[in-house]
């Protein structure tokens, strides 16, 4: 019998507090869940629910105040800033609402950025970046500037960039928020396709039209998981 592989992601009683004027504000009050290899989930919740805070912690942009966070079995909740950057680089692929491409770099160079920080040598960097862009259907736009592309195309570049280092988790923050319905649907099609190939995807959204397309929905309310909510199997 083969041992069961550890979950891609495991949160145990994660708390996060921000100091306010007099007392502390607890944005997260004990969040626990697992995410398994090949899952596609959406993280939902109204504004103020702690959704963004949780996403920042999962994306290693921020640290939990209390609790444990494991990525592929490794405890990453107490790492130094440099070590977190290295884990973020290799394990997490970000897709943002506002695309967040670097305007002065070409499409190809944008996808090369995470590879550069991973220390991949130049020739291999270019061929890998080109391959990822090919995959998202932009193989003919390598030398373009981001501003020369449509919103949907820019988001595809961002997806290619997120996938550059085969991350454990593709983390998308309102990926369709700046796109029209049709283009947004196309991006979700792309996520679905990637997920079918085995990429673990987490989409942070407040649109039920988006969350309906994932097999599992994690709902957050006032810093805790919404226990009344139904998790779609």
């Amino acid at each position, binding site marked *: 019998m083969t041992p069961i592989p550890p979950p891609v992601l495991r949160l145990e009683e994660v708390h996060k507090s921000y100091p306010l004027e007099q007392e502390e504000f607890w944005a997260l009050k004990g969040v626990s869940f697992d995410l398994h290899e090949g899952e596609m989930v959406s993280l939902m919740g109204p504004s103020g629910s702690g959704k963004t805070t949780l996403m920042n912690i999962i994306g290693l942009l921020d640290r939990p105040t209390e609790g444990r966070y494991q990525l592929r079995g490794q405890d990453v909740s107490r790492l130094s*800033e440099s070590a977190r950057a290295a884990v973020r680089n290799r394990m997490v692929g*970000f897709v943002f609402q506002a695309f*967040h491409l670097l305007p002065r770099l070409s499409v190809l160079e944008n996808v090369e950025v995470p590879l550069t920080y991973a220390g991949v040598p130049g020739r291999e960097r270019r061929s890998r970046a080109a391959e990822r862009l090919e995959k998202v259907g932009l193989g003919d736009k390598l030398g373009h500037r981001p501003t020369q592309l449509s919103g949907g195309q820019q988001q595809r570049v961002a997806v290619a960039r997120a996938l550059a280092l085969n991350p454990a988790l593709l983390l998308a923050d309102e990926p369709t928020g700046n796109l029209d319905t049709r283009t947004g649907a196309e991006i979700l099609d792309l996520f679905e396709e990637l997920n079918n190939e085995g990429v673990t995807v987490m989409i942070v959204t407040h649109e039920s039209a988006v969350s309906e397309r994932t097999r599992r929905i994690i709902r957050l309310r006032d810093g805790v998981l919404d226990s009344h909510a139904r998790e779609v199997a």
Partner: protein
Amino acid sequence: MAAVIALTSLGSGVTSNITEVFSGLGTNLLTISSGSAGGPPGLVRGGVRQTITTEDAEAIKELGDPRIAGVAPTLQTNAQVKAGALNANATVVGTWSDYASVRNSAVEFGTFFSDADTRSRKRVAVIGFDIAAELYPDQEASGQRITIQGVSFTVVGVLPDKGAGFGSSNTNVFVPLSTYLQRINRQTSVGAPTVQAIYVQGASAEDLDGLVTDLTLMMANRHGTPEPEEYDFRIQNQADTLDSLNSVTRTLTLFLGAIAGISLLVGGIGIMNIMLVSVTERTREIGIRKALGARPRDILTQFLLEAVVLSAGGGVVGIGIGIGLAIFATLFLDITPGIAVGSILVAFGFAAAVGIFFGFYPAQRAARLDPVSSLRYE
């Protein structure tokens, strides 16, 4: 940066200029001239009564002091010298044969005149480079005849080119002092014929101070002026003159360096300002890069590199302008600027160092930005 190059080039140019001129005049050189001890240094000579005589020079020579390497009294006048149809304006100097070694004036062609020539009042002459070129453009000057104030002399030697600066012998004509006194000019305000100066060369630099003391006592005795206030002569040590001149140029170079340093500081603060603005403007980019896995070190390196490129680029432009300015200045100042490859490299290194020094604070700020808030920065 331009200022640094231009100013230090000129500064070191002046210093090496002065040192070169002085070493060309002879080493361990003492100058005995007329005038009171407290008077102005020997630049203004018009009103000074001539009190130094050939007998003083002979007395010094007869001391046979081992600390003295040579003695050469001089008398000079401006005169026209002729050779055939050609003529030239020369400073005719009457002196002794020691002059060649004492004033570092070895001949290039022929020989300097000898003590025997002086004793027998021979009509022989050693001529400067420019005089030879003017009077004998197409032929060897040695052995030719020239006429000074109607008196015919035989050229026995030609001096090498000493340049056009202060103390150059290029337009001089040297003749034995005895011949000069007999044929050209003679002044005897105090009995024996007077000379303008007696040059004494010391054998070594260490003995020079003692030699000055002894010569001063001896001259005071000879002139019957026991008290320093009554001295009618002055003994100058060239090393002292060189020292004081050098200290002036040192101060000058230091002053120029201070100005250059201030301009570096201002430039550095300018770079820091530009980089701080750049970091603020690119907060979002920094956030994105951090989200993609840039460590603080990567961000620090990126911004430091930009600062260095900025300042080194400025350095290259500045070095160009500096060299241009230094060359431009020489058109008016008659100073050979000391543009050394070394100083250019140092200046370039300095520019890069300024970039690192003043770029560090902005780069560190960039590296320490919080990824969450910088991603949200508008």
